């Protein structure tokens, strides 16, 4: 009962802050709403017993990625609002389409069923702590996908470096 209440609280806050993040006028306020959202997602992870995932959620998303967003917001001056041509001419037609999409989503929701039980029931994960369970699985059974993901990230890093690097001429002056 308590867990259900807790879940409902998190769900309401996540939805609410998500909506506020796209409707608030001030972009910094929007980023703060996303920060609150990330914290509630971490709380959901905690309620499921995935403590490592919760901590990483806060360190990586709240501590690094969102701070970078703030950095970009501060450095890019956003004095004038960005105006785009409307995709759909009438606002009510847009609302109708959005409502239709929600209806479609709700309609296909019952199709989801829980998958087959894996090797890691909750008791076994709790017995050796989630961190160790995650590490054991990631570095033994799933080591190849893990390495491939690492390689893709490395490509992204090298690409970023190449974009950010300024070429130097023979005298060592930056062009």
């Amino acid at each position, binding site marked *: 009962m308590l867990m259900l209440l807790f879940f409902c609280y998190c769900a309401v806050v996540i939805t609410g802050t998500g909506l506020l993040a796209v409707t608030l006028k001030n972009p*910094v306020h929007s980023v703060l709403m996303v920060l609150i959202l990330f914290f509630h997602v971490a709380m959901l992870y905690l309620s499921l017993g995935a403590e*490592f995932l919760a*901590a990483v959620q*806060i360190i990586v998303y709240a501590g690094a990625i969102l*701070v970078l967003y703030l950095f970009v917001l501060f450095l890019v001056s956003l004095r004038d609002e960005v105006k785009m041509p409307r995709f759909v001419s009438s606002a009510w037609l847009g609302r109708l389409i959005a409502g239709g999409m929600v209806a479609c989503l709700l309609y296909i929701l019952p199709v989801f069923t829980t998958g087959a039980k894996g090797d890691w029931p909750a008791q076994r994960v709790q017995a050796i702590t989630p961190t160790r369970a995650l590490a054991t699985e990631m570095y033994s059974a799933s080591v190849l996908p893990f390495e491939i993901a690492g390689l893709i990230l490395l490509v992204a890093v090298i690409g970023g470096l190449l974009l950010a690097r300024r070429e130097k001429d023979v005298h060592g002056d930056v062009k």
Partner: protein
Amino acid sequence: MHVLVLLIQILVLFAVVMLHVAYATYFERKIIGHMQVRMGPMRVGWHGLLQPIADGIKSFFKEDVVPEQADRPIFLAAPVICLVAMLTSLAVLPFAPGWVLADINIGLIFILAMSSLSSYGVILAGWASNSKYTFLGGLRSMAQVISYEIAMGLSLVGVMMLSGTLNLSEIVQAQGTSFTGMYVFPQIIAFFVFCVAMLAETNRVPFDLPEAETELVSGYATEYSGMRYAMFFMAEYIGMMVMSAIGTICFLGGWNGPFTVPGVPFFWFVLKIYVFLFVFIWIRATLPRYRYDQLMELGWKLLIPLALANIALTGIVKAVIG
């Protein structure tokens, strides 16, 4: 009943830490005074012993000024975010065997998460004040904290690999009670990286660019006054204590010492924290400030590669010895 006991424990911890914070400022002023051949605070009480109390009362009753152009809710919330994040990380610190509020499995990364959260307070304070000095201070702090957090996290990975756990009490137990068991010996590179990153994470000299007095008046805290200004100071000193505690737990064997002091199980822990604090203050009295590009170069080109090399080395040695 259990909740009540926990509440009392939290209150006691809070009171003790606040008292330590107040007297850490006195400690700092006295030490720097004597290092610069002056007396430091002398007027309030015997050898100025009541100075921190007087400072506290003064800042508590001062007017809380909010600039007209400031983003009011964020301006008011920023110091609170800073202080709360730092106070939360106190909950997982083991002061003595069993003396810990929340003995969680992920203690070490919990502290890293909270320290990254407290940087939000500084950044938002800089932005919400709507002033050039505070804004520059906030930007500097942001870049500095992101860069050095990586080095700090990586330096602690070696400790995690040796102890095989993230629980702070278990890390202390894994080091054993002997002098040579302390992780400062096998993890000497990590300890070096940690000490430098610790100074940068807490915005202390020689990395105090976010509040460089000579350039930015007082950096991110320029527009603050009264109790909210004091909150930033409390957060900074609690941050120093938390970082010292992490250094003590991960590298210096936590509460273990050459002999047990009867009745005071936390004796060695507090002593080691005060050694760290003394070094913090000693460095402040000795070293000039870094230039900004030097700070970034040190972080990215020296500390992070060193920490990564340490991880590889620890892994190889652990695989060979078994």
